[in-house]
């Protein structure tokens, strides 16, 4: 059993549905038709480009290419984490904290999975490395962005309480402890919920794709289970790291709350 190849006509039929949606949007005065068409166009171009890139890389398996693509994905994810925060750390810390946390968690987990669990040959085989890194980065990105945004917002809004606790003789670690833990929970809850709902409410995309491509369902499910474990671990480690670094940065060596490190 192998996948049925899609022809340009097939894609055009699917695209016709989106054009129909845009037309309906115009008739109902939703004002979304422009954005729908632009987004659909962007998606098409971006995915075709990545398809071409992947085809080239699969044809020329080389560590340098994989690393280059991985770094590009990491920087894009780091930029996204930064953009999703209303009040981020000033200077390089704003970009570096989220990006560094994703690098440590996603990259470490992916390399571990490739070399120890899946055992691909070579370990950086792009057919496995790039999709897995993509799934890990995408999920850790969401978790880290949520958690860091929550942390900096809370510090900003709860300044009076934090400083009151400092004035009563608590150290920064204690005075900020509950808020720090709450931010970590915020970052981890989505993946915990996704694990709980997997298979009942939603059929995860990766498994669906493998089944469509002709894999036996149980093989696809085993891969999905592994990926969910990796994502949960990667997100959790990344969130904890990003929050520890950020909350340390929010206080100075005399346990003063330094909101001037935020912008």
């Amino acid at each position: 059993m192998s996948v049925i190849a899609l022809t340009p006509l097939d894609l055009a039929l699917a695209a016709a549905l989106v054009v129909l949606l845009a037309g309906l949007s115009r008739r109902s005065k939703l004002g979304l038709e422009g954005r729908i068409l632009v987004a659909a166009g962007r998606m098409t171009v971006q995915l075709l480009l990545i398809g071409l890139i992947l085809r080239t890389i699969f044809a020329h398996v080389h560590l340098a290419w994989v690393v280059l693509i991985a770094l590009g994905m990491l920087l894009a994810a780091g930029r996204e984490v930064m953009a999703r925060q209303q009040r981020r750390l000033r200077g390089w810390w704003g970009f570096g904290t989220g990006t560094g946390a994703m690098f440590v968690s996603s990259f470490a987990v992916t390399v571990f999975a490739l070399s120890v669990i899946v055992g691909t040959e070579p370990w950086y085989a792009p057919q496995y490395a790039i999709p897995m890194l993509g799934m890990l980065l995408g999920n850790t990105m969401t978790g880290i962005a949520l958690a860091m945004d929550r942390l900096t917002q809370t510090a900003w809004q709860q300044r009076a309480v934090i400083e009151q606790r400092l004035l009563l003789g608590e150290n920064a670690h204690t005075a900020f402890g509950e808020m720090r833990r709450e931010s970590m929970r915020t970052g981890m809850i989505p993946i915990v919920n996704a694990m709980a709902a997997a298979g009942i409410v939603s059929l995860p995309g990766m498994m669906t794709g493998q089944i469509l491509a002709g894999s036996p369902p149980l093989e696809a499910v085993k891969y999905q289970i592994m990926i969910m474990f990796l994502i949960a671990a990667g997100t959790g480690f990344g969130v904890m790291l990003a929050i520890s670094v950020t909350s340390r940065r929010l206080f100075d060596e005399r346990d003063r709350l330094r909101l001037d490190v935020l912008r």
Partner: protein
Amino acid sequence: MSRLTVEALRYHGCGPIDFTIADGTCASLTGASGAGKTLLLRAIADLDPHDGRALLDDVPATALPASTWRRRVAMLPAESSWWYESVGEHFGIAGAAGAAPSTERLALLGFTPEVMAWAIARLSTGERQRLAILRLLAQSPHALLLDEPTANLDASNVTAVESLIATYRRDEHASVLWVTHDPEQRGRVASHHYRIEDGTVRAEPTP
């Protein structure tokens, strides 16, 4: 012994500021809004970055962990914050030193021991302010930095707070820096008087 000394203190364009409050005495501090009174207290409590130094009995703040310094040189902010559900949970938060206040001390400010079970949400502004003072004293500080401690209180509670602070100061030989706009209160509570103006602090005769 709890002599509070401020040496060449500079913060936010104010200073250098120098003064000493002997143990067991109270100094009043006044000045226009925005002159930097609250910022001065925050700098002494080491809550804001500053140059110069503050010392308690010749021990500089930097010689102690910041949390220890703030327990000893305790600042009462103009507006208190409460974050747990009940009053009692806010007492003794930073170690064993801050147990619940004695019945006499509670009674002096018009409370019974049951107040410890009250919900924060039902407290009035004045009750919060009086409880914030009790919470501060429960940490057994050596020096007090009070930012308009009676601003939201009625006349009888103003008297009660003034007498509670005076008793604490005498019994514990504590030094007190009391920010107030009220000239009569300055005369009642303090033996030394300071005014902050144009970024400097200078001594004044009794108002």
